[in-house]
């Protein structure tokens, strides 16, 4: 993330949005760890901010890449639907919003596939990030969606940790891909400009 921040100022709009996304994700993760591990308090409500921020920033990111105004429309609809969900059932705040997560992540996955299609003939930027978003969101959707179920199940700690660790591994792979993208596109240029 530091790498992205460093070259923040002189990059394209898509790049800036992606950097903001990374920053917001890391803030949520740090505060989640802080609440859970250090203060031993409930930190599940942060998952709502996590997926809404993810939906918001990745939608804007793909709006820049795909140059389509429909994405803004879809984004507004999605946000309205999520707000309605919380009005409809305030208790949702203390659970996983499985439907919300599934819908928003699926929409982003559709954008990644459209971007894959658009990159077939030309060598586009951000293709490695696109792969990362695609792989991570596709597989993690199910992990998040099954969150509520797992809380209600009586399963061993080990199993629970396994599931969380899979998510962690996937997220780590995602981070590595993001780093590769940065290295591929910007590392050389940074050297040149020095």
């Amino acid at each position: 993330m530091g790498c992205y921040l460093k070259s923040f100022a002189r990059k394209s709009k898509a790049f800036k949005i992606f950097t903001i996304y990374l920053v917001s994700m890391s803030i949520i993760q740090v505060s989640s760890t802080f609440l859970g591990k250090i203060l031993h308090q409930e930190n599940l409500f942060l998952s709502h901010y996590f997926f809404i921020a993810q939906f918001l920033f990745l939608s804007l990111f793909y709006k820049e890449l795909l140059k389509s105004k429909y994405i803004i429309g879809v984004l507004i609809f999605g946000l309205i639907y999520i707000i309605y969900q919380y009005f409809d059932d305030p208790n949702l705040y203390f659970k996983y919003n499985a439907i919300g997560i599934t819908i928003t992540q699926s929409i982003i996955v559709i954008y990644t596939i459209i971007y894959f299609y658009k990159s077939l003939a030309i060598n586009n930027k951000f293709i490695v990030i696109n792969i990362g978003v695609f792989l991570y969101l596709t597989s993690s959707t199910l992990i998040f969606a099954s969150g509520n179920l797992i809380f209600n199940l009586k399963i061993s700690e080990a199993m629970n940790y396994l599931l969380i660790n899979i998510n962690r591994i996937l997220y780590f792979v995602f981070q590595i891909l993001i780093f590769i993208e940065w290295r591929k596109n910007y590392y050389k240029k940074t050297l040149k400009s020095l």
Partner: protein
Amino acid sequence: MEKELLQEDSQIIVIIFIAIFVLLFMAIALVVFFFFSRKKILATELEKANLALSHQKGILQATIETQEQERERIAQDLHDAISAKLNVVSLSTNVLIDGNLTIEEQQEALKHILNVTTNTLESSRRLAHNLLPPILDKFGLAAALEELCDEFENSKKVSVENNIVYNDSLTKNKELHIFRIIQEFMNNAIRHGQATVLNLSIEDIKNTIKIKFIDNGVGFDAQTLEDKAGLGLKNIQSRIDILEGELAYKSGKGIGTTFEIKINNS
């Protein structure tokens, strides 16, 4: 009871794991598929670009060759029609200057010089005319083409029918290209096709100019021509490319040749 429940729950977890891995596997497969398709598409594009490049090179080569041939022809014409005759004039003048001639002989020589000079003038006029017909510039394409047809009919022992409707809708530059194309058609028909009847018609309707040229010559095999398109036809094709027109032709032994060109003038 408790243990059984635990087992059932574990099964659900196992199913979730399997589903996650299947999803992940499908996602990876899609990414791999993407990269392979991209590789293939890029390779095809490269091939296409190379093909277009070699085609362009071919046209360039043909242009240079034609230019060289044209220069050779002009040099030959200048040498035959002008230099040789001016030589005669120069010789006769020298004889006159030396001055050991009777009045009658002098008169004879002067007449000869006048004669040769007049001939040379006519030749140089014709040469210049062949290079760029002045009528095209002054009176437009229709008049120039009619004159071309008349010239062919008068000098080359062929009958030329023409039906030209043209509203001056193209630029001078494009008109010259059309003129050259038709000149080439006529030369080819007579030189290679031994044609005796030529028919030229031009229509100018609604933004489209249609040119049709028919001869009754021996024709050629359209299939073999594709492969080793002669210089003449390559030249015509590149002119049509410049005009952004379309060329269609039909030919065969015994049925003569038909060329059709469509040009958009909007």
